[in-house]
């Protein structure tokens, strides 16, 4: 059950999660809380940047993170299915040889 494809799939999955969770942490905890006072020095329209990230921007980024995850995982799933199929087709010929 724990073949190389499964291992590769899980490794790729964990990599995706690490990247996306880092963005999640950065936008909410770093920009929205820790650096909010500093970012408030920048403005666009009527918003101070730190305030906007805390009350608006972070939520939009959260939505984007989940959407990217969705597309990324679909691709990863497809590649895993293809690899498994290829492997299944290859094996009988190897046996004959």
């Amino acid at each position: 059950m724990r073949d190389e494809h499964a291992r590769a799939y899980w490794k790729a999955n964990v990599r995706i999660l690490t990247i996306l969770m880092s963005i999640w942490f950065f936008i909410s905890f770093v920009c929205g809380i820790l650096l909010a006072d500093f970012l408030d020095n920048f403005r666009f329209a009527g918003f101070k940047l730190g305030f906007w990230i805390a009350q608006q921007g972070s939520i939009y980024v959260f939505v984007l993170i989940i959407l990217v995850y969705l597309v990324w995982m679909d691709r990863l799933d497809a590649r895993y299915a293809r690899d498994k199929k290829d492997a299944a087709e290859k094996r009988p010929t190897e046996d004959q040889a």
Partner: protein
Amino acid sequence: MSVQIWTYIFVVLSFGLYIGIAIWSRAKSTNDFYVAGGGVHPLANGMATAADWMSAASFISMAGLISFLGRDGAFYLMGWTGGYVLLALLLAPYLRKFGKFTVPDFIGDRYYSNSARLVAIFCAISVSFVYVCGQMQGAGIVFSRFLEVDITTGVIIGMTIVFFYAVMGGMKGITYTQVAQYCVLIFAYLVPAIFISLMMTGNPIPQLGFGSELTPEYGGGYLLDRLDNLSMDLGFAAYTEGLRPTQDVFFITAALMFGTAGLPHVIIRFFTVPSVRDARKSAAYALVFIAILYTTAPAVAAFAKMNLLNTVNNATYEELPGWFSTWETTQLISFDDINADGVVQYSGDAAVNELTVNRDIMVLANPEIAGLPNWVVALVAAGALAAALSTAAGLLLVISTAISHDLLKRSLMPGITEKQELLYARLSIFVAILIAGYFGINPPGFVAEVVAFAFGLAAASFFPAIVLGIFYRGMNRQGAISGMLAGFFFTAAYIVYFKFISPESSTAEHWWFGISPEGIGTLGTFINTAVALTVNRFYPAPPKAVQDMVDEIRLPG
């Protein structure tokens, strides 16, 4: 037509809709009853999850909380949306792949132990129970204020409706009513917000409106700048500045995030879709639907604060608009003319302040304060009821499945037939409704306090146990159980100490590391994880079958 008549029309229409759906979607098997047959479309599940999630507190109280907290209010916004990222990335797909009915199912099977299952049942029931009492109370308040029936009648009407579709349809009935309830509540939230944004800034999109300039009738200038100045003139802090200690905001945000991801009534929604891919998809839909309300809320908060300050401050009492006296009778707003000049002075200085405002008024009375048409004012009641009832139903289902499935079928009476199990499920939901209704009518003082802490408890008990169960194959039952118990009791003890035993000492200098009881769930989560990993080292790894199961849930499909 008067607000009252419009309110009756909207409430009766929406309730008729819920009952219609209940009759159409009766549950025939335990599979229907627990997970709606596992065949819910991800879009429908996304809406249902959003309605399940957004409670009376989100609808009625959140914008008001933000308008009095200013920038710090962001911990509710980020906490209650950011938790969905955790849910979507770390939990939902794997739990769907696991493919059973409940959270205690997962904990019990993954940690190959009935004690772990019992701990999970205990946590699930206590978390859900505190939460559901708050919903019933919310429904009762809305009934009494908008329809002028007393709270008892209001709660009984609410209970009857929930009883009807939850007992008949189980998860199936709940899911499809929640879809309808989402539509009702989001419409009721957006329409007044759009109206007010247009009126005050000329921009129909509230999310942009609160960063725009005010129209000349409102005096021009950027809304948030005006709000900052106005607040400071009255002796309050500037609206867009943070007041709370940074580490406290950090910990509260994290506690709400971990808690969101650990709440059983949200997690079980992902058991209802057909596949892992659909679980991911419906998590995405859910967050989009939730984000619509959560990005509107801070705009509503700013508009409402501005309107309140403009209308009420330095107005003579006789000249105040009609809504003031309406809400005065409900005691949500009160005027105490200290210097007896007949003029309202609103101030950050307690010695001269004459106005007391309950935060809930910022949503409930917002359309009236802004002078919107009667039908818009009336929408709020239907929306608030949809929010309260949808969340209540989801929570009642968790309680009922915890009893009939986890406790009876899986632990105490494994021999019962499916028919008997279904009967027990319906019976336990019935009893749960009665108890919740009782506490809705006679709210013990602690309910409102404790609802916020349900998050801390969920964070400190479930979240680490589930995440470790998926991402750490070697985690054994001794580690997981001791972690859950340590996290739960540490968090509960801290909250009970500062909220009930010694509330007078609940100030920043007495808190550990400056963390308020609202944020302590984060520390509880860390303690849970640390204890689990430490204890894990002294006991053997889980059996091969369990490790294989973990491998299996990690794979697609």
